């Protein structure tokens, strides 16, 4: 029983926030990509590239912040290359996404050996540090949310609101949504559809890259081979679960993060770890079975013409 109460303790809420951050980022990445009409099966790879780029960046510049920017940039560049294949050359998006994941897994492993002469794991690099927000940190109990936290966590929540706002209230966002539903109509209304798509994919790549960077230089200080470990796919699931919206993606990510946090609280409870690890995936399937018919995918998804 105390175990159950622990799940709602402030420590666990902070843990959920940390677990949710990379998921929210990659789910938002998936949302933007899929609204642009590109099936986002390659997010796993984009995240991995971002994680690697951030560590490599931090290694060469000695700065965690610069590392994060480089991680985001590498995610964006990779996503643009992927967009070139999907948009300009009208590639089979799902197969190409599988290719992207393999490619990223290989390239980052090869890169690790090239840069650090080590197989499978990089050397330690400078982390992107945490910040304490003055004044707010003095609030009793809640102050802990503002003490020694990664700025990326706040940035992620801000981005979530920003993306929601842009999609709902700005001209750019409304045009983008028109593209997601009916690209041909948008084009005949004078919107340069493909330019929007390329920009969207670059943003999507940067977001996934930031999610990867969070794993490698915020929560860790090294790059480990295949360290993303399925979070990219989980982000895609969160996006679908959340109905292709910014807040839906974030909400689903929090549910998954909650399921993951159970794992850390059940160490004593004698439940095999594997079943706890299955939880987010099982929850998603059940949720899709129950509510799946209600949420509709963007109409132009996967149909680049």
């Amino acid at each position, binding site marked *: 029983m105390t175990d159950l109460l622990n799940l709602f303790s402030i420590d666990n809420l902070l843990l959920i926030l940390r677990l949710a951050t990379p998921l929210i980022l990659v789910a938002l990445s998936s949302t933007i990509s899929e609204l642009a009409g590109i099936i986002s099966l390659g997010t796993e790879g984009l995240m991995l590239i971002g994680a690697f780029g951030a560590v490599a960046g931090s290694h060469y510049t000695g700065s965690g912040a610069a590392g994060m920017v480089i991680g985001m940039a590498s995610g964006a560049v990779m996503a643009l290359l992927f967009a070139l294949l999907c948009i300009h050359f009208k590639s089979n998006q799902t197969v*190409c996404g599988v290719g992207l994941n393999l490619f990223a897994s290989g390239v980052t492993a090869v890169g690790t050996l090239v840069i650090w002469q080590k197989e499978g794991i990089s050397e330690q690099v400078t982390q992107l540090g945490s910040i304490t927000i003055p004044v707010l940190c003095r609030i009793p109990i809640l102050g802990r949310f503002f003490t020694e936290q990664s700025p990326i966590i706040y940035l992620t929540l801000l981005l979530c609101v920003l993306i929601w706002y842009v999609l709902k209230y700005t001209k750019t966002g409304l045009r983008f949504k028109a593209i997601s539903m009916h690209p041909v109509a948008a084009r005949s209304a004078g919107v340069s559809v493909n330019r929007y798509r390329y920009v969207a994919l670059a943003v999507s790549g940067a977001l996934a890259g930031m999610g990867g960077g969070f794993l490698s230089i915020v929560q860790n200080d090294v790059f480990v081979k295949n360290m993303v470990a399925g979070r990219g796919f989980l982000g895609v*699931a969160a996006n679908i679960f959340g109905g292709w919206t910014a807040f839906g993606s974030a909400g689903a990510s929090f549910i998954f993060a909650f399921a993951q946090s159970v794992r850390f609280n059940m160490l004593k409870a004698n439940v095999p770890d594997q079943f706890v690890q299955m939880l987010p995936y099982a929850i998603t399937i059940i949720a899709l079975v129950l509510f799946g018919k209600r949420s509709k995918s963007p109409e132009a998804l996967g149909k680049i013409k």
Partner: protein
Amino acid sequence: MLKKKNLRPLADSVVVRSVLSILLALLVASIFILLVGKSPVLAFSSLAKGAFGNGRAVANTINKAVPLIFTGLAAAFAFKSGMLNIGIEGQLHMGALLSIVIALNMPPSAPPFLVILLCILGGIAGGMMWGALTGILKERFKIHEVIVAILLNYIAIQFVSYMINYPLKCKEGLPETEMIPQQFRFLTLVDRTQLSSNVFMALAAVVIAYLLINKTILGYKIRAVGSNPTAAAAGGIGVSGIAILSMALSGGLGGLAGTAEVLGTYGKLFDGFSSNVGFTGLAVAVLAGNNPFVVILTGLLFGIMDSGARQMNIRAGLSADMVIVIQGLVIFFVATPQIFNFLKARRREKK
């Protein structure tokens, strides 16, 4: 077919497209290898030496191709019915699990032929169950098959990991199962290699898959649904049932990849035994243009890469994962036939 020819003059031939994809992938990989300061010639020659250097190397290369042929067939089968089976990895795990549970629970005196047959059927059943589940969730609950399959992959992998770490854990306490008794395993064909008679099972599966798709009424229905579901429905084919069935059959083939690894290559089950052959199978199928016989060749090609990777690492100083980069590049290019039209158009402009 005619229409395709008009649209894609160069890329209409699967063979041309695949060979070009491989060449382009090797070219890009060579540039990449040069960029990191290594020699592509040394890399590829050591890869070839690792894969073909001596008789035992060749035997191991063929063995590496066996699971890829199964997963390639599985992917091709689903593609024929118009679906993408990205869940082969999970189906393979369930097939492997059922096979090993059967093999470990047989009395030592049981007739080996019968046990192996049961294990094969178990592998098919395990994969089929997982594939059918994907198909049912897709057809009855309208959830996209790719998402369902990815989620089911993780559930299967975690479940197998649980079985290995708890109920099936070996006496030594390592996270792996006991070894299957020698008499219940596929025969080793070449001493001190992993090549076993599972290669014949792979060849048989190729022939059966070919006959099933091309020479039976069921196969005709599957192809009809794959090429035009609306027309197939108008023609009186139960599209939804066929979709579930073909996903199940595809899963059965994927499950056999697990059986082949467990009863042949390893003789036991452990975490990470599959090294992503489920995903590589998609590439094997796409590269083969979904032709079961060509799957043997493309499966071998990927087998060569896997098998030569270690020598490339030792002799050329590149990470063995370079072959994954090449495999990723091959998938990019083979998924993007228009890239070659672009090359052709450029050539014409120059003239």
